[in-house]
């Protein structure tokens, strides 16, 4: 048996699920961010796999590049925000930062 598209897809599915889990459960904001990074990566794997097995059309790869760029930008801003939060609340635990609610 050889490595098919599906193999890669399953990896991405796994990553996505892990990422989702992290996002949903971990209290530490930074962990949540990590989870989001995982999700993005899983998406990227999809793009590349599809582009590879879809006859090597570059569109997927281009998409992946921009995703990476965005991930970087997002990480920067996220970090800034988290730091700011830490300044204000002296914690980065998402669940403790819940003053705005009904």
């Amino acid at each position, binding site marked *: 048996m050889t490595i098919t598209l599906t193999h890669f897809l399953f990896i991405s599915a796994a990553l996505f699920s892990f990422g*989702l889990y992290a*996002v*949903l459960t971990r209290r530490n904001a930074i962990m949540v961010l990590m989870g989001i990074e995982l999700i993005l990566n899983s998406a990227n794997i999809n793009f590349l796999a599809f582009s590879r097995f879809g006859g090597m059309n570059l569109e997927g790869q281009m998409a992946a590049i921009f995703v990476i760029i965005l991930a970087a930008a997002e990480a920067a801003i996220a970090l800034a925000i988290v730091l700011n939060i830490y300044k204000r609340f002296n914690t980065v635990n998402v669940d403790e930062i819940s003053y705005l*609610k009904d």
Partner: protein
Amino acid sequence: MLPELTIALVILFLPLVSFVLLIFFGKRFTEKSGLIGTTFLGIDLLFAIYILFAKLATDTVWDFTFTWIDFNTIVNQIPLKLDIGIMVDSLTAVMLVVVTLISFLVHVFSLAYMKDDVRYSRYYANLGIFTFSMLGIVVTNNYLLMYVFWELVGLSSYLLIGHWYEKKSASDAAKKAFIVNRVGDLGFFIGIMIVWMQYSTTTYTGIFSAIGNGNVPFDSNTWLTAAGLLIFCGAIGKSAQFPLHVWLPDAMEGPTPVSALIHAATMVAAGVYLVARTFPMLTADALMVIAYFGAVTAFISATIAIVQNDIKKILAYSTVSQLGYMVMGLGVGAYTAGVMHLVTHAAFKAGLFLASGSVIYAMHHALHHLNDHHTDAQDVRFMGGLRTKMPLTFWTMTIFTLAISGVPLTSGFLSKDEILAGTLAFSHFTGHSIIPIIGFFVAGLTAFYMFRMLILTFMGEHKDAHRIEHIHESPRVITVPLMVLAALSFFVFFSFNPINASQGWFFHNVEYPVISVPKTVASTPTEEFVEEIHHQHTTAMVLSVAISGLGILLAFVTYYWKKISADAFERALKPLHTFLYRKWYFDELYDATAVAATLAVARILAWFDGTVVDGIVNGAAWLTKIGAVVSGKFDSLVVDGLVNFTAFFAGMMGQTVQKVQTGKVQTYMIFAIVGLMVLLALYI
């Protein structure tokens, strides 16, 4: 328009003018207002008399009809008009005189009687509006207009009964009178609706001719009967027939002259007049029912009258009884007799009231002079022996009493035994012999209680020797009307034959109308009936004289010679006495049933409205319960009502949904994912 009709209109509107004058400028000419009203009525009377003679001279019926409202053509129907107008035939002419005459005399009488009343001018104004509307009833030629004036009469009676409205009893009586009459009028109105719907006209002639052509409501004679009876309902109300008679005795709360005018002579007679007008469209069944109503009324009220002590109450019940008599007369088919009794009764009953008024006037002054405020100036038990002190009043009163008891040579005798003859004839044709029996029995009762009253009031010794000193004959303005009426209570004015009126001008002019109902359901043909009356006449005469003589005798035996102790009887028949004294408990009955029910329903519905309807629409009930719990946020914006229910419901929803807004971003995400999965579930 014919000159006579113009005059009729003048007669109609003069009292209105006096009303308008007095209502607006009454304040201006305070004590003159009485005179003004009286003069107007005087002129009115003259015109009326003129009309009467003019009418007697000719047989033509003066009729004038014009279109009041034109509905233009209606969908697939003939052009619909609402015609109204006035008409003067013999009946009208007679009634015109009766009304104006009594009214005039009452005006005069009141000059003295009401002299120092707080609302003197208002009183005369109201007399004016009453006379106007009463005349209206008489002259109109269609049911709609009659209904209009019918109601106006009700209004003026309301105003006059409630003239001393500071007294709760007075305002109660007024209210009662109006509402009870409304009940009757309801039937009247429904009758009119049937007629209007069927014939799209309300003029008598139009309707009767239509019926004559065999056109009956909803093609069923039953409905024709129903229509007749429904219209008769109006009479039941106005003429205080059983079971709606309860208002009339209370109406005595009004000033005595008013009682004389409205509640003895004219307005209450309007019902009889109505029946007379409707006569041509009454089927045999209808007439039968009417006859029984009349008989029952006559009987019940006569029995009540026996035991009453208030002089006006006695007269009131005698009035009811006499009205029952008239209705019975019409019911059995003795048309002219009934109408004639209406006229004669008007005279002597008005007289009786005015006379009693005179007595009360005297008593009142005496009591006032002694400033005795406990003794009831109207209670016969405190009177007696007034004969010497006020002879005029006494003699006139005697004449009236004789007349009402149907003693020969009086007008009452003539009309009464015509009616009795009629009842006999009726029983001969239909076999309903109970009617004449009641008739004669009541005749006896009448004689009895009337003389009881007379004796207790005028004869024997006065109960309070001290008081008798201060009782004087009333002034002329009071006695003159009495004398006039007394004169009119003699037979000559109605027929020169003292024992049989059927040759008199009255019978000659006010003849039976043409019955227009289909033969199948019609009552006995007129000529047969008249024939039979002639046969029965002598019997009736003899019987009635005998019976009333008996009654008079009994009265004397009991109350003058005291051979029989009335008290003993009273004690012996205590239950019966109380039963009669409490007027057969009619008021109690009605209060307990109709009134109570109405008010109860009203309260229940009001509660229902406040709670349940609001509740169903609003869920207010919910709110009050649960609203309290959440009222923290549930401020007054979230009102009860639809608002509350929805808002409450919405609020609950809102709150539950709100719960998920925990402020924890990851919870949000979970919800988002769940939502996503739900959406997917829609498709997978």
